[in-house]
């Protein structure tokens, strides 16, 4: 047992692991944002509200059908993804040719509406949702007590992130998607239904947010403002990682989770702001972000 900067090594490794766990939420959410921005050029400010909808969907599914966490993990993202598809068809499709700001304004307005409606019906204190039986408890790793649920969070988000990256970067479907973003007219000429791909992509990004929401429901307070607290940090993560880069979003998400975790040990009062300080520095040095492609 040795000390690093006055903190026992045991405590430090524990904090690093916690940082990774938080990083996995950042990675999941920033992955959805990066997919939507990279493929659709829409700055999806309603991402946080859709994350909140995922958590609320899990709660409502439990209330009205009795189905617990595991079915909700599939059903909630599908349901919220469908609402995402509806939003895209009704509102977003008219905004692709316009400036980025219009997409931002629309999705921001949507976020406010969703949050307000949720607060009106459910109040702001939050709703109870417990960790599923199979994941309760934890194991003592020696340097810290790791709840099983948190271990599951890391594993699941790593799996989803790597799976998404693989589909987009290494499969034919992903290749069509990337091509459709660069040159939609040409890709349409090849007979590929570009508008439908874009709609489904937005739906998928929204479903990713809802998936993160269901994963968060047992451990974070299920309240209408849970998304708005997180979304600002996630935007910073995406900007640092590079707005269009999938891999950048994933790596930066995990990395910044670790940095925030370390800040909580050495200087907890600054844990809210350290990510923005890093964002400012990165933007000064590399305006496109660490992994960004657009110069």
């Amino acid at each position, binding site marked *: 047992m040795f000390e690093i900067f006055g903190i026992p090594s045991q405590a430090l490794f524990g904090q690093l692991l916690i940082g990774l766990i938080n990083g996995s939420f950042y990675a999941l959410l920033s992955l959805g944002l990066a997919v939507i921005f990279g493929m659709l050029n829409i700055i999806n400010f309603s991402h946080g509200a859709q994350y909140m909808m995922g958590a609320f969907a899990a709660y409502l599914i439990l209330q009205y059908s009795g189905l617990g966490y595991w079915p909700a993990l599939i059903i909630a993202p599908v349901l919220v993804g469908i609402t995402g598809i509806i939003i895209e068809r009704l509102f977003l499709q008219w905004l692709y040719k316009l400036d980025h700001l219009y997409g931002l304004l629309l999705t921001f307005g949507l976020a406010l509406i969703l949050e307000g409606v949720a607060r009106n019906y459910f109040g*702001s204190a939050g709703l109870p949702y417990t960790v599923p039986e199979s994941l309760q408890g934890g194991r003592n790793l020696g340097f810290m007590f790791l709840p099983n649920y948190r271990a599951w969070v890391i594993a699941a988000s790593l799996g989803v992130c790597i799976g998404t990256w693989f589909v987009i970067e290494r499969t034919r479907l992903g290749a069509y998607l990337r091509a459709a973003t660069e040159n939609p007219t040409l890709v349409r000429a090849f007979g590929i239904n570009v508008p439908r791909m874009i709609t489904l992509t937005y739906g998928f990004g929204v479903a990713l947010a809802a998936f993160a929401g269901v994963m968060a429901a047992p451990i974070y307070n299920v309240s209408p403002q849970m998304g708005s607290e997180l979304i600002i940090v996630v935007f910073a993560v995406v900007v640092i990682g590079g707005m269009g880069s999938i891999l950048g979003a994933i790596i930066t998400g995990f990395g910044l989770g670790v940095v925030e975790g370390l800040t909580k040990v050495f200087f907890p009062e600054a844990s809210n702001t350290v990510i923005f300080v890093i964002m400012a520095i990165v933007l000064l040095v590399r305006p496109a972000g660490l992994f960004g492609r657009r110069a």
Partner: protein
Amino acid sequence: MRKTLGLAALAAVLACGGASAQQVNVKIGVLSDMSSLYADIGGPGSVAAAKLAIADFTKDNPNVKVELISGDHQNKPDIGSQIANQWYDVDKVDLIIDTPNSGVALAVSQVANQKNKIFIVSGAAASDITGPKCNANTIHWTYDTWMLANGTGTAIVKTGGDSWFFLTADYAFGHALERDTMAAVEKAGGKVVGKVRHPLNTNDFSSFLLQAQSSKAKVIGLANAGGDTINSIKQAAEFGIVKGGQSLAGLLVFASDVAALGLPTAQGLVLTETWYWDMNDANRAWTKRWQQERQGKWPTMIHAGVYAGITHYLKAAVALKGNVSDGKAVVAQMKSMPTDDPLFGKGTIRPDGRKVHPAYLLEVKKPSDSKYPGDFYNVRATIPADEAFRPLKEGNCPLVSG
């Protein structure tokens, strides 16, 4: 509606002309957190409580006309003081009430003092409001950090929790609660082994809870409120803190928090409050009326404080025959009259602005003991009014001589 009320008031004043039943016209503003983590402990519920107070009082006193407005301070002291300034100067508000969030309350208290208007704090907790920062325009109702510290803190130390680690919200309220509880713990013979401060509205407490675990303190004191407390308790259960032998002290817990946590997670929590909806028939009857506007929710002591505070203010306004423009005079009148309302019973307001009433040590019931929705607490003990709050001389309030 407001215009009609205003015209009616004007007509009434012109018609009266002289004495007889003196027309009293006042305007009250409920300044609260309507959209963030304190919206359930204060928020729209405070507006509902205010409406009840006005309805009950004007029923018995038809010569009193009250206009009610509300605003959202968003937990930001600059927004809170900007709204207070506008309300007092432009909108002719006489009384501002509620403000959960001690940072905002301290700021608005200064504004009320500068403009010589009245401010009744129901939602905020920092004992500084009747301590070094007291002034002649502010009354602190419901509760404060000293009462919480000496209620919950002392009780827990007496049952064996003699080493403490604090998890503190990093702003005025958290600092005040941490300071007062540290003093109470040390006075009762315990010791403080560590503390960590987290930003307000934090999502994830795992890192702080880990530090608390490694401190090996017997008690982890949660010097935060609202969503922060809910997250801390939920995540503490996840990390096996209670199973590992440490206990949690929820220094400020409301009925709405217990509802959000659910009894399985919250059971066994010991807390101190000054009003509980299920304590007697009067409270239950009032709760039923309040719930007509706030379906599915449970009123907190803050809502009860808004009701009682407005009732007492209106009594003072009537006693002063409607001359409410001098804030200091009205507050002095309120301090000179003993208080009596259906929710808090009989009580007094001290020279430092502190309203005193008994406090209750409560324990969250086990799920099996809860017989109906809202059946949250067992009443463990009653702390009499003269012991529940900080002694007058110890507050360093400039208004208190000696």
